[in-house]
């Protein structure tokens, strides 16, 4: 009788093979088809995840896709290598080693523009051959026009913009051209024309479009006000949305326009509405000082005095807040007070956050962020924090891997012990011999042989013998592979911990420097606020002096509101 007990053994052998081959797989370096690998990098680059794109790029990719590499480096603010890579790109282009696509040239132009190098940017933009999409064309026009403006050629910028399409980029370009005309010429007609075109091209639907539209309206209003056309300027100031960050400026300037028109009531109304905005904005302070001035000019002396007192009190309060914020910054540092989400007992009045943007912290944060140096430093701080979080994640992952490797080692030892290759070999030989015997004995008819699938069985046993031979090698390699994975895990863990320490040191140093910058900025605000306070006090004195020096007796001099 033929025994088929070897079948279960066969399954066991395959199970061991699966476990062992999982362990001995060769290390990966993103071993996927190039099209998929490159597509993955493009996906991350395009959606602005530059850090992920950089981690995906291996050395070969970096060398063969230099434009992508510098795009990602610039995006993650790693600028030190960019110039060197750009030199290599230009050398490749000169020697005609590599063909660059229109997309590459567009990217090079954009990078050069961001690096403030307009001439190479324009050269790169000139090399575009393919048709651009509508959005890319807008961007292309914007960069080229701005480059010409930077290079001092408004005429060329205007020519570039003749080829314009609508949208926010074109609107921005016209706006910048308007600014440039305004600064470079006494004749404001060209500036106004550019501003008006900027408004026409702006749909004002998205947040950015709305913000730009506000900015354009403020600028047009300012140009008209400077040109002594207050009536026209007021029309544009009124178009600035009240929730815009520049609303205090617009309201204050609108008040000035009304003052020019001798409409004191309207001027005061406009300045009154500025009072609801934070005082760190100088326009608010100016409005507070302008209100009593308007009252004074209207002959409402008592109200002027009240308004000066109110202004003084507001400036005094703000000075106290500035002093408190400064002492907090000195004690806790900018990171704890401004950047990170913290709860420090007793400081809820400052640290409180809300969905609204007019909290104390938000006000001061916005004020500090208007300084480019502080903005860049905080951006760097955030990037380092993100890296720190990433290291924390990997640290915990590596701990899990370590445990998993230990389990794998135990399973592997157990399975490899259970797997006796000599015994299995003997069994295979025995089964092979038995099959051969059956085949040679001629005791079974052909039909019986077919039913028992003897030939198929012989073939599968032969395959099994081959896999067993392979398995012997893989079991030996598997041990080594497991060991190397253990070592790799340990090494990565060590490097992760070292990096975490380094990040801690650098972020601390950066915090110290940000704190210094912020406190310097606060000093400027303090000086400004003190000056405002002095101006309001002087205003008070001036009113009193006027009253004292007045020879005429007037009824209700101190109560003008009832006149």
């Amino acid at each position: 009788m033929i025994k088929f007990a070897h079948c279960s053994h066969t399954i066991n052998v395959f199970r061991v093979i699966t476990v062992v081959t999982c362990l001995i797989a060769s290390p990966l370096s993103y071993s996927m088809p190039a099209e998929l690998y490159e597509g993955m990098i493009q996906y991350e680059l395009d959606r602005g995840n530059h850090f992920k794109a950089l981690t995906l790029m291996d050395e070969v990719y970096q060398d063969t896709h230099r434009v992508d590499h510098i795009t990602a480096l610039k995006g993650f603010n790693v600028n030190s290598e960019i110039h060197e890579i750009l030199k290599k790109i230009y050398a490749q282009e000169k020697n005609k080693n590599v063909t660059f696509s229109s997309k590459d040239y567009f990217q090079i132009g954009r990078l050069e523009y961001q690096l403030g190098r307009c001439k190479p940017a324009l050269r790169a933009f000139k090399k575009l051959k393919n048709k651009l999409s509508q959005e890319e064309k807008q961007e292309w026009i914007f960069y080229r026009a701005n480059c010409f403006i930077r290079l001092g050629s408004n005429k060329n910028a205007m020519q570039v913009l003749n080829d314009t399409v609508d949208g926010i980029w074109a609107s921005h370009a016209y706006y910048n051209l308007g600014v440039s005309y305004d600064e470079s010429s006494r004749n404001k007609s060209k500036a106004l024309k550019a501003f008006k075109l900027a408004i026409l091209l702006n749909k004002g639907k998205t947040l950015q479009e709305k913000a730009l539209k506000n900015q354009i309206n403020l600028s047009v209003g300012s140009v008209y006000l400077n040109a002594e056309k207050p009536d026209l300027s007021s029309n544009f100031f009124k178009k600035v949305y009240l929730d815009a960050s520049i609303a205090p400026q617009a309201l204050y300037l609108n008040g000035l326009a009304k003052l020019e028109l001798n409409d004191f009531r309207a001027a005061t109304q406009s300045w009154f509405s500025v009072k609801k905005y934070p005082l760190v904005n100088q326009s608010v302070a100016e409005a507070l000082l302008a209100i009593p001035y308007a009252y004074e000019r209207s002959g409402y002396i008592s109200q002027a005095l009240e308004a000066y007192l109110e202004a003084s009190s507001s400036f005094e309060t703000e000075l106290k807040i500035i002093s408190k914020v400064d002492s907090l910054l000195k004690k806790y540092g900018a990171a704890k007070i401004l950047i990170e989400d913290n709860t420090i007992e007793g400081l809820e009045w400052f640290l409180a956050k809300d969905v609204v943007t007019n909290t104390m912290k938000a006000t001061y944060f916005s004020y500090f962020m208007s300084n480019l140096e502080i903005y860049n430093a905080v951006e760097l701080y955030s990037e380092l924090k993100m890296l720190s979080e990433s290291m924390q994640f990997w640290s915990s992952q590596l701990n899990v891997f370590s445990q998993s490797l230990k389990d794998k080692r135990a399973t592997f030892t157990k399975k490899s012990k259970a797997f006796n290759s000599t015994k299995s070999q003997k069994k295979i030989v025995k089964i092979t011999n038995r099959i051969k015997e059956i085949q040679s004995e001629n005791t079974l008819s052909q039909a019986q042989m077919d039913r028992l699938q003897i030939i198929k069985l012989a073939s599968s046993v032969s395959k099994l013998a081959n896999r067993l031979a392979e398995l012997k090698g893989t079991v030996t390699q598997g041990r080594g592979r497991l060991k190397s994975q253990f070592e790799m895990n340990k090494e990565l863990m060590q490097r992760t911990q070292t990096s975490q320490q380094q990040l801690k040191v650098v972020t601390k140093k950066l915090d110290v420097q940000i704190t210094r910058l912020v406190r310097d900025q606060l000093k400027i605000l303090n000086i400004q606020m003190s000056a405002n306070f002095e101006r309001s006090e002087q205003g008070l004195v001036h009113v009193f002096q006027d009253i004292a020096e007045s020879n005429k007796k007037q009824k209700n001099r101190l109560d003008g509101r009832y006149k």
Partner: protein
Amino acid sequence: MHLRRFLSFLTILTLIAFGASIINAAETSKDKKKPKSIDSALIKEAEQLKKQLIQLNSELYKFEEDLLHPANTQLGVFLSISKDSSFVLDSIEIRLDDKLVTSYIYKENEISSLKNGGIQRLYLGSLADGRHKLTARFNGQGANNQYFRRKKALPFTKEQSAKFIQLVVTESKTNNEPLFKVKAW
């Protein structure tokens, strides 16, 4: 006297408002004031550290992949969208042998990146050799704002090497209906 002071401030305001935007469209909110800056040595140190961490992260990702999904058991599922497709993908669900393995909800910029030639790795896992079935369910809106919910199934055989499956969203040129294709690598 007061008016003159106001007007001088007006000039300052105008300059601030104008100056910011000329630098860059994206930099309108940044001021030109530069009291002091961060030490360049610290910036260099931070940049060096960033480079080091990019490298370390890259190695960590590769190690994780090597450990959890070795090449011989690896299955990767990818998604791409053709540039001319007007289909707006809202979400996708991937089932492997009728078991949900991943799902994803898309943002506008992700769809735009995919249409620009980007490829998203939707799923990376390990799979035993043999026959399997991959099912992808696409939810989104087509050319005429018609809501689509389409299922695409692919039976495949996993052998002793990594398997990569790419889901491709294209559009029919005749009726503008979205087409969902599968490409096995």
